[in-house]
């Protein structure tokens, strides 16, 4: 792991991965779109609205996955003082926030025909909303300091505090939800899933993962360039 603590060595690796990740994103997205919109059956209960699931559910998975990835990177950054994992955490947060936002909006768009209203305080949607605030807090804290190093460290501690809290929040929201809402509303997981629906679901999930890798690597490259710019300007001031 420490092999890639050197930004230049990391850049070499990133540049080797990038074309593959980008190509995979395009191919998987196109295949996913074909299966999601054309080559999959309609649900006998939900009709064509089931097609929203193929973006909603993978986006929700990604929202949790990216937050976990940030927490792991934060732990690595705090324990081993690994600079590339700081960059990774910073590069991941906006992507995770975007996926969380997508899960929220598509959830509302799915909810309207299912429940008759745009927003229901459904346990999953509510948890997603709170996760979105956690992302916003992480990003705001990361950028709130003049010294980027201080931002990295503070955001890393916050990510670890957040990841301990996510299950507790989930548990509380589920409790609160069962208390206030009889289980009459249609659940987001819907009826038993047809195997033909799994193909678009997993294609989209992998397309989103490849997209995440691509964008995170590009952002990290930008951050490394930015760090070099800072270093040069500093040396010019002090020199």
């Amino acid at each position, binding site marked *: 792991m420490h092999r890639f603590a050197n930004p230049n060595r990391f850049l070499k690796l990133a540049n080797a991965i990038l074309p593959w990740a980008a190509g995979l994103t395009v191919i998987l997205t196109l295949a996913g779109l074909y299966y999601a919109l054309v080559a999959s059956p309609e649900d006998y209960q939900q009709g064509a609205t089931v097609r929203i699931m193929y973006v909603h559910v993978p986006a929700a998975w990604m929202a949790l996955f990216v937050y976990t990835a940030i927490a792991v990177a934060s732990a690595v950054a*705090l324990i081993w003082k690994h600079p590339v994992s700081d960059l990774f955490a910073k590069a991941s947060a906006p992507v995770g926030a975007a996926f969380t936002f997508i899960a929220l909006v598509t959830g509302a768009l799915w909810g309207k025909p299912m429940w008759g209203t745009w927003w229901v305080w459904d346990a999953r949607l509510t948890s997603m909303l*709170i996760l979105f*605030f*956690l992302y*916003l*807090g992480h990003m*705001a*804290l990361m950028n*709130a*300091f*003049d010294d980027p190093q*201080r931002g990295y*460290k*503070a955001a890393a*501690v*916050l990510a*670890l*505090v*957040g990841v*301990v*809290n996510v299950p*507790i*929040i989930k*548990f*509380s*929201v589920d*409790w*609160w939800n069962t*208390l206030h809402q009889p289980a009459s509303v249609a659940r987001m997981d819907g009826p038993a899933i047809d195997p033909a629906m799994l193909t678009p679901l997993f294609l989209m999930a992998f397309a989103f993962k490849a997209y995440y890798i691509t964008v995170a690597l590009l952002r990290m490259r930008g951050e490394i360039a930015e760090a070099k710019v800072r270093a040069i300007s500093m040396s010019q001031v002090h020199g």
Partner: protein
Amino acid sequence: MSGFLAVVRRDLRLALRQGSDSMMVVTFFVLTVVLFPFGIGPEPGILERVAAGVLWVTALLASMLSLDRLFQTDYEDGSLDLITRSPQPLSVLVLGKVAAHWLTTGLPLLAAAPLLAVLLNMNADGFGVLVVAFALGTPTLSLIGAVGAALVLGARRGGVLLSLLVLPLYIPVLVFGVSAVDAAIMDLPFKAQLLILGGFLLGAAALCPWATAAALRQAVE
């Protein structure tokens, strides 16, 4: 232990000398709760229904009000440097600071809550549980808030940022605090909610000072 007591004593003495903080928090609490009947109408039925939620949400906001000063003054005058360099474990000293913060802000809220519950026409069955739930919940709020307060030291617009960081983490306390009081009013069992609130307090007391200490060390680095 001596370090813990020394920090508590010091912070209490400072709070007493400067005053205002506890008064400000309680005044905010009372004022905000009083606003609700104007906002949603004075019918006793509606007020009774929302009383527990209003009291808890307002308490969350009030306890956050004084958080950004928890470490800020120590950070500015340099005493935080001394505290972090003390041979005593930093998390114990942090616990002392949080305890002092709770004594000056959480305890007054606890005292004011039943009075405000009367104003909101809350059923008297809920009063006892309200006080117990506040006693278990507000220290948790102080503990979680301390992590946020330590993280935003030296940040731009720290006060607003603090609320963004801390409020989502307060949600579990809010859910179970309100649920306990509501259950008591409706004559349902409420022991589970109080036990969970107690569990949150224990968990927060074990983990938060540690996270706060980590954040403080980075702030003074």
